[in-house]
């Protein structure tokens, strides 16, 4: 019986030791800092991953060692030229000294509150030194967003490191928006611009089409008038040549030509409507008036 009690006590003792042991050891993960506190007062910081020892009276608080991202809701800001713009930015940050961080910011929530103050105030201040037209501009050479965000990053980095032992690696601009109340006027402007462009295209088309048609008509006229001119020349050549040929032939026998031509003329102009008064002396009528004597001159009647 005493033996049995002994083993019972021994096992209990082992169990108690194990449990106590668990309380004296803790694991520090790759991704975290661990601060060991004694009754709320920080005693030491552990950043080496692995298993570490403490007394069972000490407790641990863990902090994220990783790169964190802070993404506040977008806010409206005023540029130097009094334009409203909605800025959606984000910050990449990590804890430098967890102890200082713990004492100043406390935890992630607290840090984000502090970050909000810093980032908001810096963006507001720096943005107020730039015109909207230097941020939103069609020429990349004139764009100042890089400068703006670099300044904001630097200012925030200094303050965060100094005040909360937070290393801000980057503050960047996720999105730039125009405020809701301005949108309607922006849409109106966009619509008007599009209409202007559409009009321009159509006018261009008409102008160009007109030019082409006019040029075509001009060319057609030129081609046709040139062709007409040449045709007339050729015809003239034909006429001239034919006149020459006639002239050549007729001039070799002018007398005969006159005879033939006159007889042709008689045929043409002496028609049914013509009245001719013939004298009985006429050659044609000689046979009628003088009879045989016309045929045989010198013969007796």
């Amino acid at each position, binding site marked *: 019986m005493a033996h049995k009690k002994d083993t019972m006590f021994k096992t209990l003792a082992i169990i108690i030791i194990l449990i106590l042991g668990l309380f004296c050891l803790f*694991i520090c*993960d*790759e*991704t975290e800092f661990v601060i060991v506190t004694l009754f709320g007062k920080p005693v030491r910081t552990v950043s080496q*991953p*692995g298993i570490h020892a403490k007394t069972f009276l000490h407790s641990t608080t863990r902090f994220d060692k990783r*790169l*964190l*991202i802070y993404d506040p809701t977008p806010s409206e800001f005023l540029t130097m030229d009094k334009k409203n713009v909605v800025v959606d930015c984000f910050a990449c940050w990590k804890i430098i000294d967890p102890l200082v961080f713990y004492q100043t910011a406390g935890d992630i929530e607290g840090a984000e509150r502090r970050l909000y103050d810093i980032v908001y105030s810096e963006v507001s201040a720096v943005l107020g030194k730039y015109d909207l037209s230097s941020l*939103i501009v*069609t*020429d*990349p050479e004139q*764009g100042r967003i*890089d400068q703006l965000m670099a300044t904001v990053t630097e200012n925030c980095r200094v303050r965060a490191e100094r005040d909360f032992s937070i290393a801000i690696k980057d503050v*960047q*601009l996720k*999105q*730039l928006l125009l405020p809701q109340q301005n949108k309607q006027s*922006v849409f109106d402007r*966009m*619509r008007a611009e*599009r*209409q202007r462009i559409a*009009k321009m*295209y159509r006018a*261009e*088309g008409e102008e*160009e089409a*007109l030019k*082409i*048609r006019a040029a*075509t008509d001009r060319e*057609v006229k030129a*081609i*046709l008038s040139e*062709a*007409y001119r040449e*045709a007339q020349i*050729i*015809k003239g050549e*034909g*006429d001239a*040549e034919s*006149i020459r*040929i*006639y002239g050549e*032939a007729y001039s070799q*026998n002018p007398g*005969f030509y006159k*005879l*033939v031509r006159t*007889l042709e003329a008689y045929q043409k102009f*002496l*028609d*049914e409507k013509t*009245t*001719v*008064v013939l004298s*009985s002396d006429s050659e044609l009528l000689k046979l009628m008036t003088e009879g045989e004597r016309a045929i045989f001159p010198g013969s007796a009647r």
Partner: protein
Amino acid sequence: MTKTTRGLYGHLLAWGKYLLLLALGLYLLSGLYFIRTFETGVLRFFGRVVSDHIGPGLHYTLPYPFTRVDRIRLQERKRVAVGFEFSDQVVGRRSNPLQGEFISGDENILNLEMVLQYFIISPVEYLLRAENPQALIRSFAKDNLTRAVSHMQVDEILKGEGKVFIQSKVLQQTQRDLDRIMNDRKWVQITSVNLQMVSPPLEVADAFKDVVTARQDRDRLINEAEGYRYDSLPKARGRAAELFHLAETYKLERINQAKGDAERFRKMAEEFNKKGKVTATRLYLETMERVMARIQKVLVQDAKGGEPLDLNIIDIEGMQ
């Protein structure tokens, strides 16, 4: 203690020992784990990384809470959505309707949707150095998209070349930012950036569409005019050729006719020259024959005395 309770107690103790051993055994067995073919394992031993490239297969390590195994797929293309949400991700979060809105350099509002693809190069960095790597990548991508777009004209962005330009710029810049943020260590590799949607807001979509239509109208008008040109010029040239041809024909005909007439005259003249007076008389009488047949004739006795002929005695009307 009674004999029975002691016995019961003894039994419990005996069984308890075996149960304890069994529990211990099972617990130790839970340290077995396996890695699939397309996965890589990262093993943390008491919180410290001991291996970041455990290959596929069955492995053993101490069970929880002494160790932790994370699996990562190195070859898998991961996707990040900018300006919208993937349909399988909108869970419990209200989707922000403004998230796809961007401003161009000429203060036009556009809706953009972009998909970025990457794969993990360093498991340790991806798993253990950033709390939310997807959010990091997404935020930087959106930042670079905003910057790219705010320096371009809306017409450029809507064009194909503009999209390509933006995509490559965002890829380069985002890769640079991500490397920088991890102390110049390349922990992810962006493989592609795709601007899958670029569109003007609904309120002005019609106006934008009309510009496209206007461009088409312009082209159409010009094409029609060119068609007119391609039709008219050949026709004119054809007509010109026709005129030319007709003139040539006329010339030929005229000359040939002249030649023919001249030849005929020459032949007649030859005849006349041979037979002279007889030919002339014949021609004369032939003509008179034809002529006299059809004209109105008045035969008058020649007044050999010299009284002038009074034409009024001829009744012209009566002879019709």
